[in-house]
């Protein structure tokens, strides 16, 4: 399918806004990396060569210590295995990921108490948290959860928002009035309190947290889409389409939504950053995903309580700032690229 020249123009325009474009590259690579985090950040080795046989423990079931000639039945500790193989002969070797820790395990030591500061030797590049878990590892997995969360939330909000908003704008009349009142009532429910109450009664899972939050956040998109639809509905091209006998369904999906897409797309990056911030703050307050889920909010909370362990609070603040700034820059660039007036301050 050939790309619409208008779209092409928008893409070109987007990539010409350097700040946004590079942010986009950074964020996409971060997301991409996080999806393959098991290879880069994990306690499981990438490859083990034992007695001439290759093992790839990263994905799939656990390989017990017995498999590698160790004396235990639980999952192999590959860091120890690597150390052992290095000392022994026999050509066995282990290739560990660059960060050989998973986000849950506690690297505890005798007579020393976490948090441990960053150390190249132990491969805790950003140190450990107060329970001895690797911070980099928790950041990476926490990022993956946060970004998936906000994308999921975005999808949920937009699905609800666009459908109800379009319907309100398109159908109008009593339907519109009814939903307007609903929204007015809804928007007066204090969101944070409700989330706190709910999550103190039941421990929210990932999906449930998305549902709870979507429950309150569909309003914004609905409001916007309603206005957009009203506006577009009154345009001549809609009238023309109708005169040619197009169905309501076709008018909405082929004419109105494509014309409103610039608004939808422009809002998306900001919704993503909003989602990340929301999850992080809920976790920070202790009402988010249950422990020990890796979470930025929880790290932030730990950092606050242990200010002298600067590496905790430093890492998580840096990571958050980076993510939120890139998302914001992308958002700005997208808005700019979609701006029909070509008015800009970016070049």
């Amino acid at each position, binding site marked *: 399918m050939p790309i619409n020249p208008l779209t092409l123009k928008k893409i070109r325009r987007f990539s010409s806004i350097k700040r946004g474009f590079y942010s986009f590259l950074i964020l996409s690579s971060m997301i991409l990396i996080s999806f393959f985090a098991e290879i880069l950040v994990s306690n499981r080795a990438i490859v083990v060569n034992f007695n001439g046989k290759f093992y790839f423990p990263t994905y*799939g*079931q*656990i390989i*017990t210590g017995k498999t590698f000639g160790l004396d*235990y*039945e*639980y*999952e192999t500790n590959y860091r120890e295995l690597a150390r052992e193989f290095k000392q022994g002969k026999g050509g066995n070797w282990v290739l560990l990921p660059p960060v050989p820790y998973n986000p*849950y*395990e*506690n690297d*505890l*030591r*005798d007579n020393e*108490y976490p948090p441990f500061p960053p150390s190249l030797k132990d491969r805790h590049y950003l140190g450990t948290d*107060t*329970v*001895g*878990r690797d911070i980099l590892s928790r950041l990476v997995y926490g990022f993956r959860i946060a970004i998936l969360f906000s994308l999921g939330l975005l999808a949920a909000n937009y699905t609800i928002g666009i459908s109800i908003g379009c319907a309100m704008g398109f159908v109008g009349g009593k339907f519109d009035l009814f939903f307007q009142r609903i929204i007015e009532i809804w928007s007066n429910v204090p969101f944070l309190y409700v989330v706190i109450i709910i999550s*103190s*009664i039941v*421990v929210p899972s990932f999906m449930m947290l998305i549902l709870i939050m979507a429950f309150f956040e569909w309003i914004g998109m609905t409001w916007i889409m309603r206005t957009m639809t009203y506006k577009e509905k009154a345009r001549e091209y809609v009238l023309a389409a109708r005169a040619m006998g197009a169905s309501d369904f076709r008018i909405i999906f082929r004419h109105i939504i494509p014309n409103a897409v610039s608004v939808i797309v422009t809002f998306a990056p900001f919704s993503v950053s909003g989602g990340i911030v929301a999850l992080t703050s809920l976790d920070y307050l*202790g009402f988010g995903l*249950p*422990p*020990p889920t890796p979470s930025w909010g929880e790290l932030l909370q730990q950092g606050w309580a242990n200010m*002298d362990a600067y590496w905790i609070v430093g890492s998580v603040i840096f990571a958050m700032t980076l993510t939120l700034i890139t998302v914001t820059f992308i958002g700005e660039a997208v808005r700019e690229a979609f701006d029909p007036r070509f008015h800009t301050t970016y070049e």
Partner: protein
Amino acid sequence: MRQVGKINQALISVVLFILVMFLNGCGSEGTPEKPAEGTSPALDRPFDGATLPDTSEPVHPKGERPGLPEDINWLTNEEDPVFASPEARKGGVFRDSLISFPMTFRMVGPDSNGSFAGVLRSNAFSLIGIHPNTMNIIPEIATHWAFGKDKKTMYFKLNPEARWSDGYPVTAADFAYTLEFMRSKHIIAPWYNDYYTREIDRVIIYDDYTIAVVGTKAEPDLYLKLGISPTPKHFYGVLSEDFVKKYNWEIEPNTGPYQIREFKKGKFVKLRRKEDWWGKNMKYFKNRYNVDEVVYEVVRDSNIQWEYFKKAKQDVFGMTIPKYWYEKSKTPVVEKGYVRKIWFYNDTQQSAQGMWLNQDKEIFKDKNLRYAFAHAMNIEKVIEQVLRNDYERLEQGFMGYGPYTNPHVKARRWDLLKVEEIMTASGWKKGEDGIWVKGPNRFSVEVVYSLDEHTPRIVVLKEEAKKAGIELRLQQMDGSAMFKKVLEKKHDVAWMGWSTSLRPQYWEHFHSANAHIPQTNNITNTDDPEMDRLIDAYRNSLDEKERIALSWKIQEKIHETGCFVPTFRVPYVREACWRWWRLPKVPGTRHTLSLFDPFSSTTGGLFWYDKALYEETREAMAAGRAFDPVTLVDETYKIR
């Protein structure tokens, strides 16, 4: 007195969920009594013995005064060792902080059970006390006591010296009034209403200074229940509906060594020592309650309290939490010796903290799986690597109960081989992810807990349990939501502790009468006829030796059931104090929970202010001179 009050409540099975292990949660609830003063004109009628006989109806329905039984055997106790220091001197001002201002100065009724209630109740003495080291009865307001033959009555001779803080003598009528007061609907305190109706039958007045308190049933350890405290009849008179509102900020006359002198809502409360307190020369109160004034200032954040302490705006600081003891105390005032650290081992009832397995859940119906679970919990690793070896392993749910504790019961230790053995014997196999499976069942259980501070401990257990093939799913919940879930028996494993009482309470936790129904404390749903038999025998026995033997057996039985995995105990208190505060040679007692409790009638008020040391320290601080840092460790009562 406070101890007795505490015990009373526990005895009738109100067991408080321990929300905060070290922070002194809600003040121990107890029987009534309240302090006050400055507000004396409440009832202007001067004391007049003749007005006594109109004791309220629950006391003695027929109105005539009965005679004492002939063969009464009066007891007292002046033989036990004293635990205060003869070197103690009076004087000084002791400053401490409150995290929030009390919501009321009432000791009963709505909002009265905050942490400040502890201060008020400590200053409300009762008939008798308990010696904190020997656990024998000692005099408080009663000088002598005697046990009735029916095993439900105790007789008391009151100390004629005893005075309310407004000068009125404490007489028999005040004890009778306690019942009237506590049974009144107007105090809006259903628990007290119920307790003083169901547990205490009546108070009999023989003369102004001789009474009997009668319980509703024959019971062992009766003295723990019948040593009630007086309520100032002259102050309250006839109660009316406006009680709650009227007495919110009234200062009730009290019998203890201190009384509230001044307060500013939201800011501070000042208590002043009574110069001519009636008890000051009594054997067990002598050389105690030394400071002239105790000032509580409201400081709403513990980090700021710590800063206040470092600036000597607060005299002591609790350091049981490792972060303070090890890290935060690396600060100049400690290193230069201006502040001393004290680590004091006590030997008191330990909260039954640990993991309570719900035997109504499919997976825990099998005893072997409960054993396997216990062997998969690496509590020792948590103690060593997370808790700095500061905590000790709790061997069973009833440690620190003196002779009632069976020392031979030891908790199951981390043992992968045993888990393996048990699980394979029961026909389970390891699944792909290393977790045990059998048919559709997977050994994956949910652990509910409520405290943030416990997350580090539980995540380590989780990782270790994985090695044993057991998956723990952590569910952190808000405290009350968790408690509700647990009381409705909807949990797999509850991570929690129970408050303690003077004697082990088994019925509420392990008797089948409380199993399988919501809102009872048998959260493990233990339902075992043999256990029931032992517990019933224990409850019905009036013979101490037999009770102790049964107690040991029950503890063995609980261990055998395997429904409770004991975790930690903290057999000590740690505190830091400025250098000018001094303590006796043995700084506390067997049952001391805080070395610097200014009031508690059982263990409090042992410390004193040393003016010379104060001046020396202040001079040294001004000149920048340092002393040797002092960390005092007292192991007098350590269990070895």
